[in-house]
């Protein structure tokens, strides 16, 4: 019977049925970071357990790491304590740690693919909801809580109920100035922030076929913002070309065998889906959020919703709450909304192609007076490549601060934070209340090029106009 990739990967990794009906699922690759793993190692010690497969466990530091302070001890003693804890745990349990000194440190969801650790047909877990990113390679990748981090450390498995699969087909060519980020913001707007609950999202169609791996990662990354725990794209030649020659990719005869195996995991023609959604790529415009969850998005040419336009009582309450928090005028254009901060980076849009695209348009332009602009590469490798290509200089000349790799202002666990009710044009993934470090700080999510347009004009802008994209 024809099967989806999700069903095939699940079947290959199912160990047994548990008493409550869930499945004990083997997790082939476990990625860990400093925020959600220390407590799990503590639990492991309390129970006297070991790490079952240290060779399949990989660590990095990203959330708390300062991006403008390279020398330890960090000024923030709590951040230093978390850093020390990861080092201690990795050393004690024999886990590979991509520490800063290795030159391979970065956001966990950028490091995995970069190293070739993220591979098709595999299962991946990490104590981080954006683990769905790795689905871009045709892996089934779960964000998990700390107790499950403990479970995976101790048993290389976790207890899980099977998900339904929704195929989201996007067909056609994106219009100029429209990016992968706009595609996922559009999908979340259409299906809702909880529309994906209980589902894995399979992204398909000619738009995805034509996407680079980095574009696929941007979309899969935000699956969780639509409520889907898992999102994936079937592996193809683009996937294999990306993986070839990476440090953890197979070589020689093993490479050929791996590619054959990877291909076999792709969804079969005729696979059954629990739901299918079709979207015309040409209907997608540059999209920005106006509210306090990633589903509250509009195209750049639309007006901010007003309570009167609400489709339900819930929608109305949501609009009222969001407008009050965002201090935005109902029914007025979002375009022209003054910004205070521009943030380029995160596991959604902190990759080489994101910075290249921004550099292409921002070269010779200047960040508007009064706007604080920071560019934070997603990994040391991304940073190095940007520096080789002179992208760091282009951004610095425009007025962006060029920083070291980390999560930075996406969630502001490091010193990069909004102040008061500053409004930030951000290439990150969440616009929740207080997300960027100030309890009253405001976030407008958008693509990196739209962030650049906002930075140079000092207001939420249509990058197609600002940079004459056509």
């Amino acid at each position: 019977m024809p099967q989806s990739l999700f069903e095939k990967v699940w079947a290959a990794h199912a160990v047994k049925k548990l008493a409550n009906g869930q499945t004990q699922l083997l997790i082939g690759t476990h990625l860990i970071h400093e925020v959600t793993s220390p407590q799990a190692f503590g639990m492991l010690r309390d129970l006297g357990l070991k790490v079952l497969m240290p060779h399949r466990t990989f660590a990095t530091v990203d959330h708390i790491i300062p991006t403008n302070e390279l020398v330890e001890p960090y000024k923030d003693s709590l951040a230093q304590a978390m850093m020390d804890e990861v080092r201690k745990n990795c050393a004690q349990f024999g886990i590979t740690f991509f520490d800063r000194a290795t030159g391979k440190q970065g956001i966990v969801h950028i490091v995995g693919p970069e190293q070739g650790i993220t591979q098709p047909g595999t299962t991946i877990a990490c104590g981080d909801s954006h683990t769905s990113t790795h689905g871009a390679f045709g892996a089934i990748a779960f964000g998990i809580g700390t107790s499950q981090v403990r479970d995976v450390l101790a048993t290389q498995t976790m207890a899980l109920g099977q998900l339904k699969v929704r195929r989201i087909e996007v067909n056609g060519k994106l219009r100029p100035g429209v990016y992968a980020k706009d595609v996922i913001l559009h999908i979340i707007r259409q299906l809702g922030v909880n529309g994906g609950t209980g589902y894995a999202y399979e992204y398909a169609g000619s738009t995805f076929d034509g996407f680079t791996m980095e574009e696929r990662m941007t979309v899969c990354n935000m699956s969780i913002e639509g409520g889907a725990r898992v999102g994936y794209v079937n592996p193809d030649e683009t996937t294999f070309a990306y993986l070839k020659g990476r440090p953890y990719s197979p070589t020689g005869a093993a490479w050929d065998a791996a590619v054959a195996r990877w291909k076999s995991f792709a969804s079969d023609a005729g696979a059954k889906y629990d739901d299918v959604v079709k979207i015309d790529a040409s209907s997608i415009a540059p999209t920005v959020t106006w509210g306090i969850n990633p589903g509250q998005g509009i195209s750049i040419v639309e007006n901010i919703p007003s309570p009167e336009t609400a489709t339900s009582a819930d929608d109305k309450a949501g609009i009222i709450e969001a407008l009050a928090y965002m201090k935005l005028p109902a029914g007025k254009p979002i375009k022209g909304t003054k910004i205070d901060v521009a943030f380029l980076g995160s596991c959604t849009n902190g990759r080489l192609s994101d910075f290249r695209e921004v550099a292409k348009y921002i070269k010779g332009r200047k960040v508007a007076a009064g706007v604080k602009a920071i560019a934070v590469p997603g990994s040391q490798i991304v940073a190095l490549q940007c520096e080789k290509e002179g992208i760091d200089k282009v951004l610095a000349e425009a007025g962006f601060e060029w920083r070291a790799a980390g999560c930075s202002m996406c969630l502001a666990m490091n010193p990069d934070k909004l102040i008061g009710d500053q409004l930030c044009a951000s290439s990150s993934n969440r616009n929740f209340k207080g997300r960027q470090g100030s309890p009253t700080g405001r976030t407008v999510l958008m693509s990196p090029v739209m962030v650049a347009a906002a930075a140079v004009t000092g207001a939420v802008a249509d990058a197609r106009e600002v940079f004459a994209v056509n």
Partner: protein
Amino acid sequence: MALAKITSVTGRAVPVVGNDIDTDRIIPARFMKCVTFDGLGEFLFFDVRKDPDTGKITNHALNDARFKGATILLTGANFGCGSSREHAPQAIQKYGFKAIFAESYAEIFFGNSTTLGMPCVTAAREEIAKIAAAVEKDPSTEVVIDLVKLEARFAGQTVKIAQRESARDALVNGRWDAIGELLDGIPAVKETAKKLPYLVA
């Protein structure tokens, strides 16, 4: 490890109104700079319980003295969306809550809470509204969440509740933390791993 069989939760309830209450709101990221979960309870809903500008206590339900000591959290749809941080259910549990009663939950939050032995049950909005109305009228109202009969009883009324069967089974049979069962499966894990070339050391 013997775990408690959680067949019911009895206590007073507090309504925390709203849909899509995300885990950043439940526990802001800056309080996650810690290497244990101890002490997270005091930071629960921190930024909505204190006015960020004035530092004054807000009218958030958890600041309402009438609901002090409540052990059941009543709320809306898609509760716990966003980040996978277990810090969120840990903070709720450490604050003193024993169960959550919502219209629906985000997936990861639901699983994290169940693993901590904190039942997340659902009911239709109208039913939750009935409980909220009863506790608003009399905050001392005792609410019983019965996981065996799948009903909630309060102030002489009974409403139907629901819970995903795998979670209900795990709670009532005292196997909500799967670690014991997963450890028992290790020989089978090793067999499955042999069939997966990428796991070979």
